């Protein structure tokens, strides 16, 4: 039996995650890897929203903020285990997305962009201003997940960086599996259909409003889990996680890597997380070169890094 494209993609991702540490010059790279995976999880959600359903959001960091602060606050205020706090955050984000998505998703194009942008700003403002609860702009500490200790007692001893590398890698892999499942399912086909022609999708029976909302909720849950993992990994969180810059970063990674492709967006997350690290040797030219690379890729590889590379490979082969 031939390996399906979904399974091939997952296999390649799993192998990359498992084998990359062999090339790490130092322990510091586990941390960079984990950051890539956390971003990779969030951008996979954006592939569902932007790449499948064709709806833009410039406010998804707001959901990352909800996820992150659920992990920061729920253990102290509600006595929840941090792991359950992550689930609470996901449910909360899904609920908020469902509520605001209904009016917002009637908008299209740049109107939708501005409305979601507003939502992201709202969340980060609340997080920064409600200092008594959230700790304000200075941020606050996050409780220890405790899973690493539990693993140690059963004989799996990992350094903190190694543990988070594995945990976030696994989360991203699961996220990719779910998104790839969706892509080739009845719901996924309906989402991609409404992306290409809303009127045709309607006439074959697609409830466009409901499906857009589903994609919005799903992508919000991805962003929320990504924010939670970031908070638990760093043991500290500031309102920046919900900020406008983070939202834009996530969309940029998605589009840069390939907005319709799960592995593409993950490659985008990897490239744009690594590149600034690699470019630090250029010192004051760092941002200049980074900006230049981004512009060139988008000019010459309009569909994003991975889809364009694949097409070129196929064209030759």
């Amino acid at each position: 039996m031939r390996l399906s494209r979904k399974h091939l993609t997952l296999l390649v991702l799993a192998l990359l995650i498992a084998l990359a540490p062999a090339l790490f010059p130092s322990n510091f790279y586990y941390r960079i890897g984990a950051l890539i995976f956390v971003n990779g999880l969030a951008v996979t959600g954006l592939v569902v929203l932007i790449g499948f359903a064709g709806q833009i959001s410039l406010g998804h960091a707001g959901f990352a903020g909800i996820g992150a602060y659920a992990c920061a606050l729920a253990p102290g205020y509600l006595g929840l285990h941090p792991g359950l706090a992550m689930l609470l955050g996901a449910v909360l984000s899904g609920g908020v997305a469902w509520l605001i998505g209904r009016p917002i998703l009637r908008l299209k194009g740049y109107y939708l962009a501005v409305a979601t942008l507003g939502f992201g700003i709202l969340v980060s403002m609340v997080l920064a201003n409600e200092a008594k609860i959230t700790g304000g702009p200075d941020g606050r500490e996050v409780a220890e997940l405790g899973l690493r200790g539990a693993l140690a007692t059963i004989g799996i001893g990992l350094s903190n960086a190694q543990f988070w590398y594995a945990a976030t890698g696994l989360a991203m892999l699961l996220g990719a599996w779910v998104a790839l499942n969706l892509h080739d399912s009845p719901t996924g086909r309906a989402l991609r259909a409404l992306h290409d022609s809303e009127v045709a999708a309607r006439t074959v029976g697609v409830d466009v409003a409901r499906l857009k909302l589903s994609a919005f909720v799903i992508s919000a849950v991805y962003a929320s889990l990504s924010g939670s993992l970031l908070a638990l990994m760093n043991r500290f969180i500031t309102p920046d996680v919900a900020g406008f810059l983070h939202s834009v970063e996530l969309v940029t990674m998605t589009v840069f890597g390939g907005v319709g492709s799960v592995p593409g967006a993950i490659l985008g997350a990897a490239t744009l997380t690594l590149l600034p690290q690699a470019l630090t040797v250029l010192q004051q030219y760092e941002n200049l070169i980074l900006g230049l690379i981004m512009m060139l890729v988008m000019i010459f590889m309009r569909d994003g890094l991975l889809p364009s590379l694949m097409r070129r490979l196929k064209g030759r082969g």
Partner: protein
Amino acid sequence: MTLLQVEGLGIDFGGLRAVNDVGFAVAPGEIVSVIGPNGAGKTTLFNMISGVYLPGRGKITLDGRDVTGMAPNRLAERGLSRTFQNLQIFQRMSVLENAMTGCHLKERGAILSDLLCLPSSRRRSAVTKARASELLERVGLARAAEHEASSLSYGALKRLEIARALALEPRILLLDEPAAGCNAVETEEIDHLIAEVAKSGVAVLLVEHDMKLVMRISNHIVVLDRGEKIAEGSPATVSRDPRVIEAYLGTQGAEAGHALG
């Protein structure tokens, strides 16, 4: 027995009466054609019947129920399906996926089972795939199934839209110029396909500029000109109607007049 009934239907765009006071009926198994010069309002009429435009006046009844202003997806649930004159293809999906999307109402299920690829989700997709493949076979696109839709020719895309519309297993099918851009052989095939569909009991509402095709397969013809119904009846009656000949001669010259006989 009437499946679709249209009464006094009308819509304005700004000052333009695009369609005014149009009425007719379609029965199961019947092929009713709507003809008229460019800009007569045929597509606009289709858009109102399929719920894409909200009618300004009049009433649409499907199976005895008032469905005026009902959303397209609700109408699809009631068995109304259509194609588009200005192709509405899902460009970034494969030919097969395009046809599969036509099965949406039958294949949709719990989103959670789609996210987790549960057996029920896989089963629904497999059934749809088999059904869509059959339809592609029927419109002569089986060999292109795995191609990206955007790679097909215009005539092939027209047939893909028909396959997608048939995938709904409609009770009434609206075809907006299905033979446009098709060569003589393809037109012949479409002709057969429409006749076959009607024979299976589906009501067909057809807009088509190919007069030979229209005269050959229609049971009943409705003629529009500048938004108004100017004539209606059997192909023989309509082609002899002086107002029809004038409408066509006025806008399309002797060729159309000749085609009308």
